[in-house]
């Protein structure tokens, strides 16, 4: 009996499955995955993920087809040999394999570099961000401590609050720091996750695009109540934001009098503690 051309069959099946799956993944599934499009950073992450899914889907389809085909075509039969056919080297396959993987890796490196230099791939985060958005960004200091986040608005007299509100459509620069152990400020919907390290000013840029609430979590195991270190923030209109921040200035005026002068590096007093 003539052996069928397994390679051709696998290639055809892979191409057909990829042709069906890739548009579905790229056009339907990937754009609807978290973090969504609530901010520029979130949209950038969704775009990056969509491109990566577009590349990965044909590869995954080929692997799955190969597995499925092998299970059926090369299964052990009752009267067959215990071992499969001998696999021998094939120069053409090797060359194609090297060429395709090289192209993919070079493309990903170039794509990642371009995106890192833009807002999409986290280039706008870190103590010394590679990317800085054009124009002015409103600074908001995120202060983590066991086990609560508080927020300072230097633009509004350095007022500190226990709640985070942001104006829609305005570039924001989070300056994330900690007063005690390592925490992590994570607002999944905004596409922001930045470590909060004591004495470090960790910057993350974001431009909220939707007026809606968003969750905030600590994403670094930080002690007994880590699981309770969450909060809900709110993106509001400019007018609402101004009303809110002026109200906070009024409510927290007594605390504002004793806050240290605003600084991007928060080295808290006192040195004397219970320990």
């Amino acid at each position, binding site marked *: 009996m003539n052996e069928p051309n397994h390679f051709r069959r696998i290639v055809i099946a892979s191409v057909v499955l990829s042709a069906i799956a890739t548009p579905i993944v790229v056009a339907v599934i990937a754009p609807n995955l978290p973090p969504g499009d609530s901010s520029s950073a979130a949209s950038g992450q969704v775009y990056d993920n969509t491109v990566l899914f577009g590349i990965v889907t044909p590869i995954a389809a080929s692997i799955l087809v190969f597995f499925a085909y092998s299970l059926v075509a090369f299964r052990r039969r009752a009267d*067959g*040999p*215990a*071992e499969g056919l001998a696999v021998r080297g094939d120069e053409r396959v090797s060359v194609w394999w090297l060429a395709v993987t090289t192209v993919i890796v070079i493309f990903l490196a170039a794509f990642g570099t371009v995106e890192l230099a833009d807002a999409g791939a986290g280039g706008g985060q870190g103590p010394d961000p590679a990317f800085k958005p054009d124009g002015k960004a409103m600074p908001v200091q995120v*202060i983590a*401590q*066991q*086990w*609560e986040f*508080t927020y300072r608005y230097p633009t509004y007299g350095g007022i*500190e609050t*226990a*709640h985070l509100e942001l104006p829609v459509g305005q570039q924001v620069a989070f300056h994330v720091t900690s*007063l*005690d*152990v390592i925490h992590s400020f994570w607002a999944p919907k905004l596409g922001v996750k930045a470590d909060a390290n004591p004495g470090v000013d960790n910057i993350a840029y974001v431009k909220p695009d939707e007026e809606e609430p968003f969750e905030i979590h600590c994403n670094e195991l930080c*002690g*007994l*109540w880590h699981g*309770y270190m969450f*909060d809900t923030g709110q993106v509001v209109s400019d007018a609402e934001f101004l009303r809110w921040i002026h109200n906070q200035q009024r*409510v*927290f005026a*007594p*605390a504002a009098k*004793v*806050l*240290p002068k605003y600084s991007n590096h928060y080295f*808290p*007093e*006192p040195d*004397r*503690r*219970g*320990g």
Partner: protein
Amino acid sequence: MNPIRRVAWVPRVGAKGGVLSSLTGRLMAIGAAVIVVAALIGFYVADLVRSPTPVEASRKGGVYHVYLKTEAAIGPQDANPSWVSYLIKNPQGEWVHSTNFKVPAHALVHFTVYQFDGDSGLRNPFLSQVHGTVGNRMLVDGRPLKSIPPEEASHTFAVAQLGLIVPLRGVPEDEDDQCEEGPCNLSQAHETIEFTIRTGKPGRYRWQCFVPCAAGFLAGFGGPMQTIGYMDGFLQVT
């Protein structure tokens, strides 16, 4: 002779006492062991997170009352005698070592805290302002205050989920008859802090002290700050 070689490890289906039964036995033993270990871990975790019976607020007139005290060292009656701790007075008037208490929903609850510890200071001065109480104020030894100097804080009673912050001023160092170790009594130097909150919907809210007050632990954050039942607990609103 059959030219087809058989691979040694391929199990023969249905072979009694052969590789299959041995493999099945081993898999069953591993499965049983996994279930037993998982159950033990489950019981341990359940026991760990299980809250002790909460102490109920006492009612006088239309207002519910919670009486708390803080001691710099809880004393020899506890497994950790040198640890700083909150205590609560139960409806029978006895001080008990618990940080889990129950108050009614949609009600006025008046708190009285007898504060026997010295100051440690707040790391974040923002928490030196009273917030979330009726009138956003407290009474300290009968005097209404909206904030205290952050360096004078000994502890806080704070419920982050409810936006409640009450800084507790420490006993000045020059006061006579300081209580170094519990049980402390009201004839000794202390501050009396009172405040009222209006409770909202039912829920289980955790409360904590924000002052790094754990003497003897790294940066004051270990021991009683990391153990439920000392400087943190649950406020059950029912």
